[in-house]
Protein backbone atom coordinates (compact mmCIF):
# COMPACT_ATOMS: atom_id res chain seq x y z
CA UNK A 1 0.00 0.00 0.00
CA UNK A 2 2.74 2.47 0.90
CA UNK A 3 4.36 1.62 -2.42
CA UNK A 4 1.15 2.68 -4.18
CA UNK A 5 1.04 5.88 -2.10
CA UNK A 6 4.61 6.78 -3.00
CA UNK A 7 4.05 6.19 -6.68
CA UNK A 8 0.82 8.22 -6.68
CA UNK A 9 2.55 11.10 -4.92
CA UNK A 10 5.44 10.99 -7.38
CA UNK A 11 3.05 11.29 -10.32
CA UNK A 12 1.25 14.21 -8.68
CA UNK A 13 4.52 16.05 -8.06
CA UNK A 14 5.64 15.49 -11.66
CA UNK A 15 2.38 16.56 -13.26
CA UNK A 16 1.48 19.53 -11.10
CA UNK A 17 4.98 20.79 -10.31
CA UNK A 18 4.22 21.08 -6.58
CA UNK A 19 6.51 20.51 -3.60
CA UNK A 20 6.48 16.88 -2.46
CA UNK A 21 5.63 17.80 1.15
CA UNK A 22 2.40 19.46 0.02
CA UNK A 23 1.17 16.18 -1.46
CA UNK A 24 -0.41 14.82 1.70
CA UNK A 25 -3.07 12.15 1.54
CA UNK A 26 -5.72 14.66 2.51
CA UNK A 27 -4.69 17.13 -0.19
CA UNK A 28 -7.35 17.97 -2.79
CA UNK A 29 -5.96 18.14 -6.33
CA UNK A 30 -7.98 21.23 -7.19
CA UNK A 31 -8.29 23.07 -3.87
CA UNK A 32 -4.83 22.40 -2.44
CA UNK A 33 -2.53 21.51 -5.33
CA UNK A 34 -3.55 24.02 -8.00
CA UNK A 35 -4.92 21.55 -10.54
CA UNK A 36 -7.66 22.50 -12.96
CA UNK A 37 -10.23 20.06 -14.29
CA UNK A 38 -8.05 19.08 -17.27
CA UNK A 39 -5.08 18.46 -15.00
CA UNK A 40 -7.20 15.94 -13.08
CA UNK A 41 -8.04 14.17 -16.35
CA UNK A 42 -4.32 13.97 -17.07
CA UNK A 43 -3.60 12.67 -13.56
CA UNK A 44 -6.16 9.91 -13.93
CA UNK A 45 -4.56 8.93 -17.26
CA UNK A 46 -1.18 8.80 -15.59
CA UNK A 47 -2.53 6.59 -12.76
CA UNK A 48 -4.04 4.24 -15.35
CA UNK A 49 -0.71 3.98 -17.16
CA UNK A 50 1.36 3.54 -14.02
CA UNK A 51 -0.82 0.93 -12.32
CA UNK A 52 -2.41 -0.82 -15.30
CA UNK A 53 -5.91 -0.11 -14.03
CA UNK A 54 -8.87 1.29 -15.85
CA UNK A 55 -10.54 4.20 -14.09
CA UNK A 56 -13.99 4.76 -15.64
CA UNK A 57 -15.23 8.36 -15.88
CA UNK A 58 -17.79 7.94 -13.08
CA UNK A 59 -15.08 6.64 -10.74
CA UNK A 60 -12.62 9.32 -11.87
CA UNK A 61 -15.11 12.02 -10.89
CA UNK A 62 -14.93 10.79 -7.30
CA UNK A 63 -11.14 10.92 -7.11
CA UNK A 64 -10.72 14.35 -5.59
CA UNK A 65 -7.85 13.84 -3.16
CA UNK A 66 -4.56 11.98 -3.06
CA UNK A 67 -6.12 9.46 -0.64
CA UNK A 68 -9.04 8.88 -3.04
CA UNK A 69 -6.53 7.92 -5.75
CA UNK A 70 -4.50 5.65 -3.45
CA UNK A 71 -7.64 3.89 -2.21
CA UNK A 72 -9.11 3.36 -5.66
CA UNK A 73 -5.86 1.96 -7.03
CA UNK A 74 -5.33 -0.22 -3.95
CA UNK A 75 -8.78 -1.73 -4.36
CA UNK A 76 -8.67 -2.19 -8.13
CA UNK A 77 -5.14 -2.98 -9.23
CA UNK A 78 -4.02 -6.54 -9.65
Amino acid at each position, binding site marked *: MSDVADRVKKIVVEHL*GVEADKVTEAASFIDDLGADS*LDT*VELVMAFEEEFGVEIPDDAAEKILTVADAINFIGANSK
Partner: protein
Amino acid sequence: MRRVVITGLGLVTPLGANVETAWANILASRSGAGPITRFDASNQACRIACEVKAGDGTGMTFDANSRVDYKVQRQVDPFIVYGIDAAGQAIEDAGLTDMTEEERFRAGCSIGSGIGGLPGIEIESIVLHEKGPRRVSPHFVHGRLINLISGQVSIKYGLMGPNHAVVTACSTGAHAIGDAARMIALDDADVMLAGGSESALCPLGIAGFAQARALSTAFNDTPERASRPYDKDRDGFVMGEGAGVVVLEEYERAKKRGAKIYGEVIGYGLTGDAYHVTAPHPEGSGAFRSMQMALRKAGLNPEDIDYINAHGTSTPMGDELELGAVKRLFGSAIDNVSMSSTKSAIGHLLGGAGAVEAIFCLLALRDQVAPPTLNLDNPSEACVGVDLVPHVAKQRRIRAVLNNSFGFGGTNATLVMRGV
Protein backbone atom coordinates in the same frame (compact mmCIF):
# COMPACT_ATOMS: atom_id res chain seq x y z
CA MET B 1 -4.04 58.14 -37.69
CA ARG B 2 -2.18 57.67 -34.43
CA ARG B 3 1.57 57.04 -34.61
CA VAL B 4 2.96 53.69 -33.45
CA VAL B 5 6.41 53.14 -31.95
CA ILE B 6 8.34 50.13 -30.66
CA THR B 7 9.25 50.30 -26.97
CA GLY B 8 10.23 46.72 -26.11
CA LEU B 9 11.99 43.78 -27.76
CA GLY B 10 12.20 40.05 -27.01
CA LEU B 11 14.09 37.30 -28.82
CA VAL B 12 14.56 33.56 -28.56
CA THR B 13 16.91 32.44 -31.34
CA PRO B 14 19.43 29.73 -32.15
CA LEU B 15 22.16 32.31 -31.47
CA GLY B 16 20.91 33.35 -28.06
CA ALA B 17 17.71 33.65 -26.07
CA ASN B 18 17.84 37.37 -25.37
CA VAL B 19 18.14 40.42 -27.60
CA GLU B 20 21.71 41.49 -26.86
CA THR B 21 23.26 38.02 -27.06
CA ALA B 22 21.53 37.16 -30.32
CA TRP B 23 22.44 40.51 -31.87
CA ALA B 24 26.08 40.32 -30.75
CA ASN B 25 26.37 36.86 -32.31
CA ILE B 26 24.71 38.05 -35.53
CA LEU B 27 27.19 40.93 -35.78
CA ALA B 28 30.06 38.55 -35.03
CA SER B 29 29.09 36.47 -38.09
CA ARG B 30 28.33 33.36 -36.05
CA SER B 31 26.14 30.58 -37.42
CA GLY B 32 23.46 28.83 -35.36
CA ALA B 33 23.37 25.81 -37.66
CA GLY B 34 24.38 22.30 -36.65
CA PRO B 35 23.36 18.67 -36.90
CA ILE B 36 19.80 18.00 -35.72
CA THR B 37 19.94 16.81 -32.10
CA ARG B 38 16.24 17.12 -31.17
CA PHE B 39 15.46 13.74 -32.71
CA ASP B 40 17.16 11.03 -34.72
CA ALA B 41 17.38 12.54 -38.21
CA SER B 42 19.63 9.86 -39.69
CA ASN B 43 17.00 8.73 -42.19
CA GLN B 44 16.14 12.28 -43.36
CA ALA B 45 17.37 13.96 -46.55
CA CYS B 46 18.06 17.06 -44.46
CA ARG B 47 19.89 16.37 -41.18
CA ILE B 48 20.75 19.93 -40.12
CA ALA B 49 18.91 22.81 -38.49
CA CYS B 50 19.35 25.93 -36.38
CA GLU B 51 18.12 24.68 -33.02
CA VAL B 52 17.47 26.69 -29.89
CA LYS B 53 19.74 25.08 -27.30
CA ALA B 54 18.09 24.31 -23.96
CA GLY B 55 20.22 25.26 -20.96
CA ASP B 56 20.48 27.64 -18.05
CA GLY B 57 20.03 30.78 -20.14
CA THR B 58 23.72 31.67 -20.23
CA GLY B 59 25.64 31.90 -23.49
CA MET B 60 23.43 30.95 -26.38
CA THR B 61 21.14 28.72 -24.31
CA PHE B 62 17.46 29.12 -23.51
CA ASP B 63 16.06 28.47 -20.04
CA ALA B 64 12.32 27.85 -20.28
CA ASN B 65 12.03 28.09 -16.49
CA SER B 66 12.87 31.77 -16.43
CA ARG B 67 9.46 32.95 -17.68
CA VAL B 68 7.21 29.94 -18.33
CA ASP B 69 5.40 28.06 -15.54
CA TYR B 70 6.33 24.41 -15.08
CA LYS B 71 2.81 23.17 -15.80
CA VAL B 72 2.52 25.26 -18.96
CA GLN B 73 5.85 23.90 -20.21
CA ARG B 74 4.53 20.36 -19.78
CA GLN B 75 1.31 21.08 -21.62
CA VAL B 76 2.30 23.10 -24.67
CA ASP B 77 4.51 22.82 -27.74
CA PRO B 78 7.91 24.56 -27.82
CA PHE B 79 6.65 27.34 -30.13
CA ILE B 80 4.32 28.51 -27.33
CA VAL B 81 7.10 28.36 -24.74
CA TYR B 82 9.39 30.44 -26.96
CA GLY B 83 6.58 32.91 -27.66
CA ILE B 84 5.71 33.40 -23.99
CA ASP B 85 9.37 33.98 -23.14
CA ALA B 86 9.96 36.46 -25.98
CA ALA B 87 6.77 38.33 -25.03
CA GLY B 88 7.92 38.43 -21.41
CA GLN B 89 11.29 39.86 -22.41
CA ALA B 90 9.56 42.52 -24.53
CA ILE B 91 7.09 43.67 -21.88
CA GLU B 92 9.87 43.76 -19.26
CA ASP B 93 12.10 45.73 -21.65
CA ALA B 94 9.28 48.22 -22.20
CA GLY B 95 8.72 48.56 -18.45
CA LEU B 96 5.04 47.65 -18.79
CA THR B 97 4.71 44.70 -16.42
CA ASP B 98 2.80 46.81 -13.87
CA MET B 99 0.05 48.40 -15.94
CA THR B 100 -3.20 49.38 -14.23
CA GLU B 101 -6.40 47.51 -15.05
CA GLU B 102 -7.53 50.51 -17.09
CA GLU B 103 -4.32 50.36 -19.14
CA ARG B 104 -4.59 46.60 -19.55
CA PHE B 105 -8.06 46.96 -21.08
CA ARG B 106 -6.24 48.81 -23.87
CA ALA B 107 -3.30 46.38 -24.18
CA GLY B 108 -3.45 43.28 -26.35
CA CYS B 109 -1.59 40.50 -28.13
CA SER B 110 -1.01 39.64 -31.77
CA ILE B 111 1.51 36.80 -31.71
CA GLY B 112 1.22 34.20 -34.45
CA SER B 113 2.93 31.18 -35.89
CA GLY B 114 3.19 29.68 -39.34
CA ILE B 115 2.59 26.06 -38.48
CA GLY B 116 1.84 25.79 -34.77
CA GLY B 117 2.36 22.70 -32.67
CA LEU B 118 3.49 20.21 -35.26
CA PRO B 119 5.85 18.26 -32.94
CA GLY B 120 3.01 17.70 -30.48
CA ILE B 121 0.56 16.78 -33.23
CA GLU B 122 3.03 14.20 -34.52
CA ILE B 123 3.65 12.67 -31.09
CA GLU B 124 0.01 12.59 -30.04
CA SER B 125 -1.01 11.06 -33.34
CA ILE B 126 1.33 8.16 -32.58
CA VAL B 127 -0.21 7.87 -29.09
CA LEU B 128 -3.67 7.74 -30.65
CA HIS B 129 -2.70 4.97 -33.05
CA GLU B 130 -0.71 2.91 -30.57
CA LYS B 131 -2.70 3.35 -27.35
CA GLY B 132 -6.12 4.62 -28.39
CA PRO B 133 -8.17 7.79 -27.86
CA ARG B 134 -8.25 7.52 -24.06
CA ARG B 135 -4.50 8.13 -23.93
CA VAL B 136 -4.58 11.41 -25.89
CA SER B 137 -3.60 14.29 -23.62
CA PRO B 138 -6.43 16.54 -22.40
CA HIS B 139 -4.03 19.41 -23.10
CA PHE B 140 -3.47 18.31 -26.68
CA VAL B 141 -5.64 20.91 -28.41
CA HIS B 142 -4.87 24.07 -26.46
CA GLY B 143 -1.20 23.11 -26.27
CA ARG B 144 -0.88 23.13 -30.06
CA LEU B 145 -3.19 25.92 -31.29
CA ILE B 146 -1.48 28.87 -32.95
CA ASN B 147 -3.39 31.57 -31.06
CA LEU B 148 -2.37 30.10 -27.70
CA ILE B 149 0.75 32.25 -27.43
CA SER B 150 -1.52 35.27 -27.41
CA GLY B 151 -3.86 33.38 -25.09
CA GLN B 152 -1.17 32.40 -22.60
CA VAL B 153 0.54 35.81 -22.68
CA SER B 154 -2.74 37.66 -22.14
CA ILE B 155 -3.47 35.53 -19.07
CA LYS B 156 0.05 35.85 -17.67
CA TYR B 157 0.14 39.66 -17.96
CA GLY B 158 -3.59 40.43 -17.70
CA LEU B 159 -3.83 41.98 -21.16
CA MET B 160 -7.51 42.41 -21.98
CA GLY B 161 -7.35 44.29 -25.29
CA PRO B 162 -7.38 42.68 -28.75
CA ASN B 163 -6.35 39.02 -28.66
CA HIS B 164 -5.28 38.03 -32.11
CA ALA B 165 -2.98 35.61 -33.95
CA VAL B 166 -1.81 35.80 -37.52
CA VAL B 167 -1.23 32.66 -39.62
CA THR B 168 0.41 33.53 -42.92
CA ALA B 169 3.20 30.96 -43.15
CA CYS B 170 6.60 32.65 -43.34
CA SER B 171 5.22 36.17 -43.39
CA THR B 172 3.36 35.67 -40.08
CA GLY B 173 5.74 37.72 -37.93
CA ALA B 174 5.68 40.73 -40.25
CA HIS B 175 1.90 40.60 -40.72
CA ALA B 176 1.43 40.26 -36.96
CA ILE B 177 3.41 43.44 -36.31
CA GLY B 178 1.80 45.32 -39.20
CA ASP B 179 -1.73 44.33 -38.20
CA ALA B 180 -1.14 45.14 -34.53
CA ALA B 181 0.32 48.53 -35.44
CA ARG B 182 -2.90 49.26 -37.29
CA MET B 183 -4.96 48.26 -34.27
CA ILE B 184 -3.12 50.96 -32.33
CA ALA B 185 -3.29 53.46 -35.19
CA LEU B 186 -7.06 52.87 -35.44
CA ASP B 187 -7.54 53.25 -31.67
CA ASP B 188 -8.46 49.62 -30.87
CA ALA B 189 -5.58 49.49 -28.38
CA ASP B 190 -2.74 51.60 -26.96
CA VAL B 191 -0.23 48.78 -26.43
CA MET B 192 0.20 45.54 -28.38
CA LEU B 193 2.58 42.65 -27.92
CA ALA B 194 3.17 41.55 -31.50
CA GLY B 195 5.31 38.99 -33.26
CA GLY B 196 5.69 35.38 -34.23
CA SER B 197 7.12 32.10 -33.05
CA GLU B 198 7.92 28.72 -34.54
CA SER B 199 9.24 25.30 -33.72
CA ALA B 200 8.48 22.74 -36.39
CA LEU B 201 11.66 20.81 -35.66
CA CYS B 202 10.31 17.29 -35.65
CA PRO B 203 10.57 14.34 -38.06
CA LEU B 204 7.31 15.27 -39.80
CA GLY B 205 8.29 18.93 -40.18
CA ILE B 206 11.71 18.22 -41.65
CA ALA B 207 10.38 15.47 -43.92
CA GLY B 208 7.50 17.65 -45.11
CA PHE B 209 9.64 20.63 -46.06
CA ALA B 210 12.28 18.35 -47.58
CA GLN B 211 9.64 16.64 -49.71
CA ALA B 212 8.47 20.10 -50.85
CA ARG B 213 12.11 20.50 -52.00
CA ALA B 214 12.47 23.58 -49.81
CA LEU B 215 15.33 22.49 -47.51
CA SER B 216 19.07 22.41 -48.07
CA THR B 217 20.33 18.84 -48.40
CA ALA B 218 23.84 19.32 -49.85
CA PHE B 219 25.53 20.54 -46.66
CA ASN B 220 24.70 17.87 -44.09
CA ASP B 221 28.38 17.52 -43.23
CA THR B 222 29.05 21.28 -43.06
CA PRO B 223 25.86 22.71 -41.53
CA GLU B 224 27.22 26.20 -40.91
CA ARG B 225 27.75 26.58 -44.67
CA ALA B 226 24.25 25.49 -45.70
CA SER B 227 22.31 28.74 -45.36
CA ARG B 228 23.89 30.85 -48.11
CA PRO B 229 21.43 33.35 -49.59
CA TYR B 230 22.39 34.77 -53.00
CA ASP B 231 25.34 32.38 -53.30
CA LYS B 232 25.66 30.23 -56.43
CA ASP B 233 25.73 27.01 -54.38
CA ARG B 234 22.58 27.64 -52.33
CA ASP B 235 20.15 24.71 -52.44
CA GLY B 236 17.36 25.44 -49.99
CA PHE B 237 16.72 26.89 -46.56
CA VAL B 238 17.90 25.64 -43.16
CA MET B 239 15.08 25.31 -40.67
CA GLY B 240 15.39 27.45 -37.59
CA GLU B 241 13.23 27.88 -34.51
CA GLY B 242 12.53 30.60 -31.99
CA ALA B 243 10.45 33.70 -31.49
CA GLY B 244 10.47 37.45 -31.79
CA VAL B 245 8.01 39.74 -30.01
CA VAL B 246 7.92 43.54 -29.85
CA VAL B 247 5.93 45.96 -27.74
CA LEU B 248 4.09 48.39 -29.99
CA GLU B 249 2.84 51.52 -28.29
CA GLU B 250 0.94 54.61 -29.26
CA TYR B 251 3.54 57.36 -29.70
CA GLU B 252 2.13 60.07 -27.41
CA ARG B 253 1.65 57.58 -24.61
CA ALA B 254 5.21 56.29 -24.99
CA LYS B 255 6.62 59.83 -25.09
CA LYS B 256 4.62 60.89 -22.04
CA ARG B 257 5.96 58.08 -19.88
CA GLY B 258 9.51 58.63 -21.11
CA ALA B 259 9.78 55.19 -22.71
CA LYS B 260 12.86 54.09 -24.61
CA ILE B 261 11.81 54.15 -28.28
CA TYR B 262 13.54 51.82 -30.74
CA GLY B 263 11.75 53.13 -33.81
CA GLU B 264 8.45 53.86 -35.47
CA VAL B 265 6.40 51.63 -37.76
CA ILE B 266 5.75 54.03 -40.61
CA GLY B 267 4.89 51.71 -43.49
CA TYR B 268 3.17 48.37 -43.95
CA GLY B 269 2.55 46.64 -47.26
CA LEU B 270 0.70 43.39 -47.83
CA THR B 271 -0.12 41.66 -51.10
CA GLY B 272 -0.84 38.27 -52.66
CA ASP B 273 0.91 36.66 -55.62
CA ALA B 274 -2.22 34.82 -56.85
CA TYR B 275 0.14 32.50 -58.66
CA HIS B 276 1.32 29.27 -56.96
CA VAL B 277 1.14 27.68 -53.51
CA THR B 278 4.90 27.36 -52.99
CA ALA B 279 6.70 29.03 -55.91
CA PRO B 280 7.05 32.81 -55.89
CA HIS B 281 5.67 34.79 -58.82
CA PRO B 282 8.24 34.58 -61.65
CA GLU B 283 8.48 38.37 -61.89
CA GLY B 284 8.32 38.92 -58.13
CA SER B 285 5.26 41.08 -58.66
CA GLY B 286 3.73 40.41 -55.25
CA ALA B 287 6.98 41.29 -53.52
CA PHE B 288 7.35 44.42 -55.65
CA ARG B 289 3.84 45.67 -54.86
CA SER B 290 4.23 44.85 -51.17
CA MET B 291 7.39 46.97 -50.90
CA GLN B 292 5.82 49.70 -53.03
CA MET B 293 2.76 49.84 -50.77
CA ALA B 294 4.87 49.99 -47.61
CA LEU B 295 6.96 52.86 -49.01
CA ARG B 296 3.85 54.73 -50.12
CA LYS B 297 2.29 54.39 -46.67
CA ALA B 298 5.56 55.55 -45.13
CA GLY B 299 5.69 58.55 -47.44
CA LEU B 300 9.25 57.59 -48.35
CA ASN B 301 11.10 57.14 -51.61
CA PRO B 302 13.51 54.25 -52.23
CA GLU B 303 16.49 56.56 -51.68
CA ASP B 304 15.32 57.12 -48.09
CA ILE B 305 15.89 53.42 -47.24
CA ASP B 306 19.40 52.53 -46.12
CA TYR B 307 19.01 48.92 -45.03
CA ILE B 308 16.82 46.06 -46.26
CA ASN B 309 16.48 42.87 -44.25
CA ALA B 310 15.59 40.52 -47.08
CA HIS B 311 13.35 37.50 -46.97
CA GLY B 312 16.36 35.77 -48.63
CA THR B 313 15.85 32.18 -47.51
CA SER B 314 18.67 30.61 -49.56
CA THR B 315 16.34 28.86 -52.00
CA PRO B 316 17.45 28.81 -55.66
CA MET B 317 14.42 30.70 -57.01
CA GLY B 318 13.27 32.96 -54.21
CA ASP B 319 16.43 34.94 -53.53
CA GLU B 320 16.87 36.23 -57.06
CA LEU B 321 13.20 37.01 -57.58
CA GLU B 322 13.14 39.15 -54.44
CA LEU B 323 16.36 40.87 -55.44
CA GLY B 324 14.98 41.51 -58.93
CA ALA B 325 11.90 43.15 -57.42
CA VAL B 326 14.07 45.29 -55.14
CA LYS B 327 16.22 46.36 -58.09
CA ARG B 328 13.19 47.34 -60.18
CA LEU B 329 11.61 49.30 -57.36
CA PHE B 330 14.78 51.03 -56.21
CA GLY B 331 16.27 51.86 -59.61
CA SER B 332 19.48 53.83 -59.15
CA ALA B 333 18.80 54.09 -55.39
CA ILE B 334 19.97 50.47 -55.15
CA ASP B 335 23.54 51.77 -55.21
CA ASN B 336 23.19 53.24 -51.72
CA VAL B 337 21.29 50.40 -50.03
CA SER B 338 22.73 47.58 -47.96
CA MET B 339 20.60 44.44 -48.10
CA SER B 340 21.30 41.28 -46.16
CA SER B 341 19.69 38.06 -45.04
CA THR B 342 20.13 37.19 -41.38
CA LYS B 343 18.66 33.77 -42.23
CA SER B 344 22.23 32.97 -43.25
CA ALA B 345 23.02 32.94 -39.51
CA ILE B 346 19.89 31.71 -37.71
CA GLY B 347 18.14 29.80 -40.47
CA HIS B 348 14.52 30.28 -41.42
CA LEU B 349 12.27 30.76 -38.40
CA LEU B 350 9.17 30.47 -40.62
CA GLY B 351 6.34 32.18 -38.73
CA GLY B 352 8.87 33.74 -36.36
CA ALA B 353 11.14 35.09 -39.10
CA GLY B 354 9.40 38.37 -39.87
CA ALA B 355 9.30 39.44 -36.23
CA VAL B 356 12.85 38.37 -35.40
CA GLU B 357 14.10 40.17 -38.50
CA ALA B 358 12.08 43.30 -37.67
CA ILE B 359 13.93 43.34 -34.35
CA PHE B 360 17.27 43.01 -36.15
CA CYS B 361 16.19 45.98 -38.30
CA LEU B 362 15.49 48.05 -35.19
CA LEU B 363 18.88 47.12 -33.74
CA ALA B 364 20.51 48.02 -37.07
CA LEU B 365 18.85 51.44 -36.71
CA ARG B 366 19.98 51.77 -33.11
CA ASP B 367 23.59 50.76 -33.72
CA GLN B 368 23.93 52.10 -37.28
CA VAL B 369 25.23 48.77 -38.55
CA ALA B 370 24.02 46.38 -41.25
CA PRO B 371 24.20 42.71 -40.19
CA PRO B 372 26.01 40.36 -42.59
CA THR B 373 24.95 37.72 -45.09
CA LEU B 374 27.06 34.68 -44.24
CA ASN B 375 28.49 32.22 -46.78
CA LEU B 376 28.15 34.62 -49.71
CA ASP B 377 31.30 33.34 -51.38
CA ASN B 378 30.20 33.51 -55.01
CA PRO B 379 27.16 35.69 -55.61
CA SER B 380 24.98 34.39 -58.44
CA GLU B 381 25.00 36.65 -61.47
CA ALA B 382 21.72 38.40 -60.76
CA CYS B 383 23.10 39.50 -57.39
CA VAL B 384 26.17 41.32 -58.62
CA GLY B 385 26.18 45.08 -58.09
CA VAL B 386 24.10 45.06 -54.92
CA ASP B 387 25.66 45.45 -51.46
CA LEU B 388 24.56 42.21 -49.83
CA VAL B 389 26.90 42.74 -46.83
CA PRO B 390 28.88 39.54 -47.40
CA HIS B 391 30.51 37.78 -44.43
CA VAL B 392 30.98 40.74 -42.06
CA ALA B 393 28.71 43.40 -40.58
CA LYS B 394 29.03 46.88 -42.00
CA GLN B 395 28.93 50.13 -40.03
CA ARG B 396 27.01 52.73 -42.03
CA ARG B 397 24.38 55.44 -41.83
CA ILE B 398 20.90 53.90 -41.43
CA ARG B 399 17.95 56.30 -41.42
CA ALA B 400 15.14 53.94 -42.37
CA VAL B 401 14.82 50.17 -42.81
CA LEU B 402 12.65 47.87 -44.90
CA ASN B 403 11.87 44.30 -43.88
CA ASN B 404 10.44 41.73 -46.32
CA SER B 405 8.66 38.47 -45.52
CA PHE B 406 7.02 36.12 -48.01
CA GLY B 407 5.13 32.90 -47.40
CA PHE B 408 3.62 29.79 -48.95
CA GLY B 409 0.28 30.61 -50.46
CA GLY B 410 1.81 33.60 -52.23
CA THR B 411 1.51 35.95 -49.26
CA ASN B 412 3.82 38.97 -48.92
CA ALA B 413 4.40 41.51 -46.17
CA THR B 414 6.75 44.49 -45.87
CA LEU B 415 7.44 46.70 -42.86
CA VAL B 416 9.16 50.08 -43.07
CA MET B 417 10.52 51.57 -39.87
CA ARG B 418 12.69 54.50 -38.88
CA GLY B 419 14.08 56.19 -35.81
CA VAL B 420 12.02 58.76 -33.90
